[in-house]
């Protein structure tokens, strides 16, 4: 692998789409400002940390669209052939896409979000302080974003047309199926259990005498299992994307 090739690929991607990226940056700032205005207008209707919701909507919406702009040449045959013929390996092409859509995007997104949140706080009479990403394990959504990034990249190189829509449909269907399967598995393993909700690989809630009772993975098991999942899953998805690029035939 050559870092020079990766750097050149990142430069190419950025230079070719620089104008679009600057406009998207303004659009992102506008979208976040608009959502903060919305929650400010209806602040008496929302309780809890609504800024967390703004953060997640902004992250997954803009991150998904931006990630989907990687390898967009594959949706057009001549451009796809040109991209495949660029003198760089498949791994370098994938790495440049991951660096842009995961690392650089997260850095820019966090910067823009904290800027807009800071401006919102300075112009409104909010009781809360600056947005705390490490409170209550909220930063785990960043790991979830990396998995999402892997899925969108995989969808991008798998589907030629309408890749984003197809990938989103598959992600939503996959999450629903995974949940149903997980609930069914729990109800099979524990007789007479009425699962009301569950989070695969983490916890479930069941109903007993009209009361919802939460069952959470022990903290020691969670501490050892979750980091493996957070790291291995995106890496595995990026790996499969790399294989897909290697196998690409147009």
């Amino acid at each position, binding site marked *: 692998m050559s870092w020079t090739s990766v750097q050149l690929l990142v430069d190419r991607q950025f230079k070719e789409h620089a104008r679009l990226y600057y406009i998207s940056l303004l659009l992102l700032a506008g979208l976040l400002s608009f959502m903060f205005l919305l929650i400010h207008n209806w602040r008496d209707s929302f309780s809890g940390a609504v800024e967390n919701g703004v953060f997640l909507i902004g992250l997954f919406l803009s991150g998904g669209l931006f990630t989907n702009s990687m390898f967009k040449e594959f949706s057009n045959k001549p451009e796809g052939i040109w991209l495949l013929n660029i003198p760089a390996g498949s791994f370098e092409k994938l790495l440049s896409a991951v660096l842009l859509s995961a690392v650089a995007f997260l850095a820019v997104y966090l910067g823009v979000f904290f800027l807009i949140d800071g401006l919102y706080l300075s112009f409104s009479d909010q009781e809360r302080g600056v947005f705390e990403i490490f409170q209550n394990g909220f930063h785990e959504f960043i790991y979830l974003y990396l998995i999402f990034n892997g899925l969108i990249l995989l969808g991008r190189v798998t589907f030629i047309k309408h890749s984003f829509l197809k990938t989103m449909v598959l992600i939503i269907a996959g999450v629903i199926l995974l949940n149903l399967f*997980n609930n069914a598995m729990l109800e099979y393993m524990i007789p007479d259990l009425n699962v009301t909700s569950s989070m695969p690989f983490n916890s479930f809630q069941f109903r007993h005498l009209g*009361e919802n009772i939460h069952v959470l993975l022990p903290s020691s098991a969670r501490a050892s299992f979750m980091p493996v999942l957070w790291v291995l899953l995106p890496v595995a998805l990026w790996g*499969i994307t790399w294989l897909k690029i290697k196998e690409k035939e147009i």
Partner: protein
Amino acid sequence: MMKASNIALSVLIIALLTSMVGVNTALEKVYSEIDLTDKLRSYTVLEFSEFKVLKISGSNGYPIDIKQSESAEIRVLRSRVSHFEHRTSGDTLIIHFSGARVSHSALPNTTTPAGLIISSDNLSALILTNTHNRISGLDQAALSLTLAGEAYTELSDNRLGMLRVQASGGSSFEFRNENMADTALLTLKHKSVGFLDGLSYHELQPVIEDSALVVLSKNALNEFVKK
């Protein structure tokens, strides 16, 4: 022949489903340890060192119940276990109970179950910051209550010899039902608010500074003027 990427994808899916079985087996073990006949089955009992002073900070999304009991115990709502942190410093138990913030106006009469239930037979002081607290059934010679930040505290059915309340910041406290204190020393600063209707006392010494407020009904005011 199957492509390498599809084989890798299949292996990943199988690995995920296998680990799901492993996680659910661990969850099944946690489930089997829950006593479903216990009224407080939604709570798990936590281990801690003995304390006389409780210092709690965090958020107000879930109320914290503090009550008297013959033996000390801390129970946390199972769904909030990961939001609970504690450590001991001398005879002080320091707790951080994090979570969502709720508007102050939504706190009274909330239907949200208690996130923490703390029972103690030897509590001399409470230092509460930003949390929603419900102190009830204390029957003891003295209690010192320090409220800071946006702490909101409801006191009900307590019988105390000496009650000392120091409220600051945007904190507030409210006496509900019937509370009795021989001597009540109330110091309110900044924008704190105290609702004194449910408090009976022999001697009341209020100190009110800055923009703090004390709210009294007609009867409570008459009683205060009479004394």
